[in-house]
């Protein structure tokens, strides 16, 4: 079986790019012949490992046409045109309650749409008008061998080599969408400068600009969170406590991310919207206790027995996210509850044994349901069905639709 892949971002450092690479490598390992199209030039830039680069490069050498096309495209920016003959699969995702209107037209370029979450199965069906028969639920996965519990190669500290009893953190593109307002506020409410607790924030270059502003808001005694009533109750603590924050806004090579996770005691991710939610799942694979929003895509794996789900108070627009993309403007996000988030962090901090056990169960859950070997087998099975002429994807719907 020859699969023609269009995935222009696959050489990048984003979670989406990493997911694309893993899908490709695992499909290739399972015997699918890959043909990588649309890569303008091949020169090694050090973003991914040399081994991965070489392997991806091999996929660009071929002399036959594919049996099936597969376009992995963020925001449904599918590249298909009349030159792409044959069955066309598009894989995409989005993180708000309603998909952007442009998705409707974009999805018609494909014979079938793969979505990575039950949440997106619903949103693509309802707001992008993709018939269920043309929708397949294909979760992304985790390299559970790489994201596995073991001593980290690194100790997380500061340049004074301060010894912290508890370091928890978030790795994200720094923005209100990821719930950094809740993270910073709760940290300042729960802990003080003398707590021997540090919050680690790993953001991107935007974060280097936004983070100081958010800190100014906290130190000014103003509210970062939307709930003014709660803010008034907690204000005295949040702007006077001054607990430690360790930050980084630089990029790290792929193999550093699991090491960073392994240096943490817990992972937090009170995101307002995810199409899949790879960071918390990677943390779960490392046996870390994870606090994340039980909303949008994360609802399907933020289960109470294996994690610390943050309840969502329904759906809300969040103008603080408008700068990220105009597709967020007036759209609706999940609304992670501040108290639920804060109490979950405190539960982990104050009862490490329970947290540890949840982490152990979380890894088992990830191995069983989201290991790349499991999910690429699922993908391969669907590709086989298509090759055999079964065009309805009903065997690959989420359980609740079956």
């Amino acid at each position, binding site marked *: 079986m020859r699969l023609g892949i269009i995935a222009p971002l696959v050489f990048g450092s984003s979670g989406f790019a990493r997911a694309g690479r893993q899908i490709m490598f695992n499909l290739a390992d399972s015997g699918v012949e890959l043909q990588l199209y649309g890569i303008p030039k091949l020169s090694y830039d050090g973003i991914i490992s040399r081994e991965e680069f070489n392997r991806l490069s091999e996929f660009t050498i071929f002399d036959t046409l594919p049996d099936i096309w597969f376009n992995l495209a963020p925001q449904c920016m599918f590249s298909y045109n009349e030159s792409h003959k044959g069955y066309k699969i598009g894989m995409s995702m989005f993180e708000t309650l309603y998909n952007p209107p442009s998705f409707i037209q974009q999805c018609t370029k494909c014979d079938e749409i793969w979505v990575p979450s039950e949440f997106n199965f619903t949103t693509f069906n309802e707001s992008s008008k993709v018939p269920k028969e043309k929708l397949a639920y294909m979760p992304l996965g985790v390299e559970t061998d790489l994201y596995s519990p073991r001593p980290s190669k690194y100790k997380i500290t500061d340049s004074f080599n301060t010894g912290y009893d508890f370091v928890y953190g978030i790795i994200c593109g720094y923005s209100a969408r990821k719930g950094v307002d809740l993270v910073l506020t709760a940290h300042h409410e729960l802990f003080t400068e003398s707590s021997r607790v540090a919050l680690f924030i790993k953001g991107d270059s935007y974060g280097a600009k936004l983070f100081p*502003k958010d800190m100014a808001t906290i130190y000014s005694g103003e509210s970062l969170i939307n709930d003014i009533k709660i803010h008034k109750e907690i204000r005295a603590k949040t702007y006077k406590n001054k607990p430690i924050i360790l930050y980084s806004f630089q990029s790290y090579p792929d193999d550093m991310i699991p090491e960073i996770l392994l240096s943490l005691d817990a992972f937090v991710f009170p995101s307002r919207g995810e199409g899949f939610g790879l960071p918390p799942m990677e943390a779960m694979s490392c046996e870390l206790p994870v606090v994340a929003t039980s909303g949008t895509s994360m609802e399907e794996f933020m289960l109470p027995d294996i994690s610390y789900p943050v309840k969502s108070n329904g759906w809300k627009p969040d103008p603080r996210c408008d700068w990220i993309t105009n597709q967020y403007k007036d759209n609706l996000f999940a609304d992670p509850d501040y108290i639920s988030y804060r109490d979950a962090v405190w539960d982990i901090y104050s009862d490490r044994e329970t947290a540890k056990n949840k982490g152990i169960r979380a890894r088992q859950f990830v191995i069983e349901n989201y290991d790349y070997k499991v999910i690429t087998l699922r993908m391969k099975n669907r590709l086989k069905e298509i090759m055999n002429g079964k065009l309805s994807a009903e065997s690959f719907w989420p359980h609740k639709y079956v």
Partner: protein
Amino acid sequence: MKIIPNVRATVYISDLSLRVGENPVLIEPGRVVSSINLLDAVAQGLVKIEVADNEKNVPGLTEFLEKVDEVTAKSLGIILSEKITEDIRKKRVTSDSPVRPVLFLKV
């Protein structure tokens, strides 16, 4: 109430009720320096306010101190934000700052 100057002026106000929300006169001992809003002066870090024990029952004091608290925090927040921005830009760290660049120490 004693207004402690960070710059030059020292002012003692015995009757707070006459001063809240008004434009008190900041004087250097013996002469007028400037006439500015008291809260602005606090926000600019020109003066700091302390309350003596015998002044705690002055009407309006609690509300006034809340406002002082707000402008002081705001001023501090802006200063700290500027410092953090500069620290991030220069990859600098100081021991008195609660916000620090991370260090991954090889073990």
